[in-house]
C-alpha cells in the first residue's frame, strides 16, 4: 500500500499472522552481489539522515513510552460488520465538545465574570473583537449542537442495544456525561447576563428549589445566597469553565477507554454468521477454520 510508506514504521499496521515478514521490505536488488557498493556522497548521506529523522524521533519516543503497541491496537482495532454512519455520533459529540472547549478558552480571554461588567464584555466581544461574534456564535450555537448530538448518540446506543452486557458501565458513564452537559448548558446560559439569561437562570434555579427538603438549600447553594446576586455569576462561571469541564474530560477518557477495550456492537439487524453457542473443545482443536466448517446442526450438540 502506498499509504503505508507515509506512516512511520512503529505505527504501521501490523502484518497479518499468516503473511511473511519480508513482504513489506520488497525483493532484494538483483545486483546486490555483482555490483560493487557505491560510496554515497556526503550530501546523499545527509539527505538520508534527514529523511529518517521523523521516524527516528518517533522511535525515540516510542522506545521510552512503548506507545506504539497501544496506538496500533487502538487505531487498527476490529469493528463489526454493518458499522454505519450512526456510529459516528459519539465522535461527533466529542468534536462538538472539543469545539466548545477551544472557543470557550478564547472567549474567556475577553469575558469578565462580574455582574456589572459581564454584559458589556460580551457586547465588546460581539462588536469590537476581531472575529469575536463568530467565536461567540460558535460557542453559543455549538452548545445546542452538542446537546442534540448527545441525545442522538444516546438514542443510537439505546436502539442498537449497545448498552447491554458488557457495556452497562459505559452507559452509566454516558448518563453522567449527559447530566454534566446539561449542567454546562445551564451554567453557560447565565454568563452573558442579559435579560434572557437572568430570567432563565432565575426560573431554572427555582425549578431546582421545588425539590422537597433539599431543594431550598440547593437553590441557595447555586445562587450563593437568598437572591441571584453578584456571587451567583462568578459561581456559575467557575462551575462552567473549571469544575464541570474537568469532570467531562476525565469521564470522556473513561468512556473512550471502555469503547476501545470492549469494542463496538454490530447493528441489531445483522445476524451473527457464526453459531452463537460456544465452540466445543474438539472444534477448537480442529483449527481456526473448525468453527466455520462445522455443520450448523452440529453446534447444538454442545
Amino acid at each position, binding site marked *: 500500500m502506498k499509504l503505508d510508506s507515509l506512516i512511520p514504521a512503529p505505527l504501521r499496521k501490523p502484518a497479518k499472522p499468516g503473511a511473511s515478514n519480508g513482504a513489506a521490505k520488497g525483493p532484494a536488488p538483483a545486483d546486490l552481489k555483482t555490483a560493487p557498493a557505491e560510496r554515497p556522497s556526503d550530501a546523499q548521506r545527509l539527505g538520508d539522515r534527514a529523511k529518517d529523522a521523523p521516524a527516528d524521533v518517533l522511535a525515540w519516543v516510542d522506545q521510552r513510552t512503548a506507545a506504539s503497541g497501544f496506538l496500533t491496537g487502538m487505531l487498527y482495532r476490529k469493528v463489526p460488520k454493518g458499522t454505519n454512519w450512526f456510529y459516528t455520533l459519539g465522535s461527533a459529540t466529542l468534536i462538538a465538545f472539543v469545539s466548545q472547549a477551544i472557543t470557550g478558552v478564547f472567549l474567556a480571554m475577553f469575558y469578565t465574570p462580574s455582574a456589572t461588567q459581564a454584559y458589556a464584555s460580551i457586547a465588546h466581544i460581539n462588536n469590537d473583537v476581531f472575529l469575536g461574534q463568530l467565536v461567540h456564535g460558535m460557542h453559543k450555537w455549538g452548545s445546542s449542537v452538542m446537546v442534540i448530538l448527545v441525545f442522538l448518540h444516546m438514542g443510537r446506543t439505546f436502539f442498537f442495544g449497545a448498552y447491554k452486557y458488557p457495556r452497562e458501565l459505559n452507559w452509566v458513564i454516558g448518563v453522567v456525561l449527559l447530566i454534566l452537559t446539561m449542567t454546562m448548558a445551564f451554567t453557560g446560559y447565565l454568563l452573558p447576563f442579559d435579560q434572557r439569561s437572568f430570567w432563565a437562570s432565575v426560573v431554572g434555579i427555582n*425549578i431546582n428549589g*421545588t425539590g422537597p427538603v433539599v431543594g*431550598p438549600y440547593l437553590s441557595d447553594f447555586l445562587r450563593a*445566597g437568598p437572591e441571584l446576586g*453578584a*456571587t451567583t455569576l462568578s459561581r456559575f462561571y467557575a462551575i462552567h469553565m473549571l469544575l464541570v469541564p474537568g469532570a467531562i474530560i476525565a469521564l470522556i477518557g473513561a468512556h473512550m477507554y471502555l469503547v476501545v477495550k470492549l469494542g463496538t456492537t454490530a447493528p441489531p439487524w445483522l445476524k451473527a454468521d457464526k453459531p452463537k453457542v460456544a465452540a466445543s473443545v474438539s472444534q477448537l482443536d480442529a483449527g481456526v477454520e473448525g468453527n466455520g466448517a462445522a455443520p450448523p446442526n452440529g453446534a447444538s450438540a454442545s
Partner: protein
Amino acid sequence: MSDDADKQNGAEAAGRPERPIPDPPGYFEGESMTRRRAFTVAVQGIGGIAGAAIVLPAVGFAVAPIFHRGKERWEAVGPVGDFVEDTYRQVIFTETEGIGDAGKTTAYVRKSSKQLDEKPNEIVAVSNRCAHLGCPVRFVEAAGNFICPCHGGVYDFQGKRIGGPPVRPLDHFQARVRDGQVELGPRYSVTSQLEPVRARDPGEFTGGVWEYLYPPRPSTFPPPSG
C-alpha cells in the same frame, strides 16, 4: 473428592494441637501488627488527613453562603401620602446590592384596607415575583388582579392565588414608616391565609406540612411577628 480430602486433612491437623505455632512472618515478638501493615495504616491515615485538609475548607467555602444571612436592608420608596387603600402604587427598589440594575425589584404598595378587614394603618407591600417560577407579575388595574405573563398565574387584590399554576400567594416585603417615608425591608412569604412565614423561593408551598418539606432557609429573615 477434594472435599473429603480437605476434611481429613483438617481432622489430622486438629488431632495434633501440640505442634508449636510458628510466628507469622514479619511479626516481631510482642507485636500485634506487622510493620508493613502498620506503615500501610499510617500512610493511609496521613493521606486521608491531608486530603481532608484540602477538600473540607474548599467544600465549606462553597456551601457557606447557605448559612449566611446578609445585612437587613431598608429603603425609602416615597411619602406615606402617596399610597392609598384601594389601589397599588408600583415602586422599584434595590433588593440585592452590587449587581446594578439586576439587583432591583418591583413592589406594589398600598395602605391596609378596612373593607378587606385588614389591620388598620399598615403598609402592604406585595412583591411582583410570581410564586410559580419567579416571573414578574403585573397589577392590572381594570381587573384588580395580579397577572403573570409566563404561565398565566392570577392573584387577587390581596395577592392570594385565584388561578393558574402558582402554589401560594405572592410574597410580601416588610414595611414601616419612618419620618413620613414608607420604607421597605426584607422579603417574606405568606400562607394561603396570608399568615407571614419566612421567605420561600417561588414554586415552594407554604403552610401546614409544607413548612417541613420546604424548610425555611437560614439565609432568609424571620417574618414580621404581627
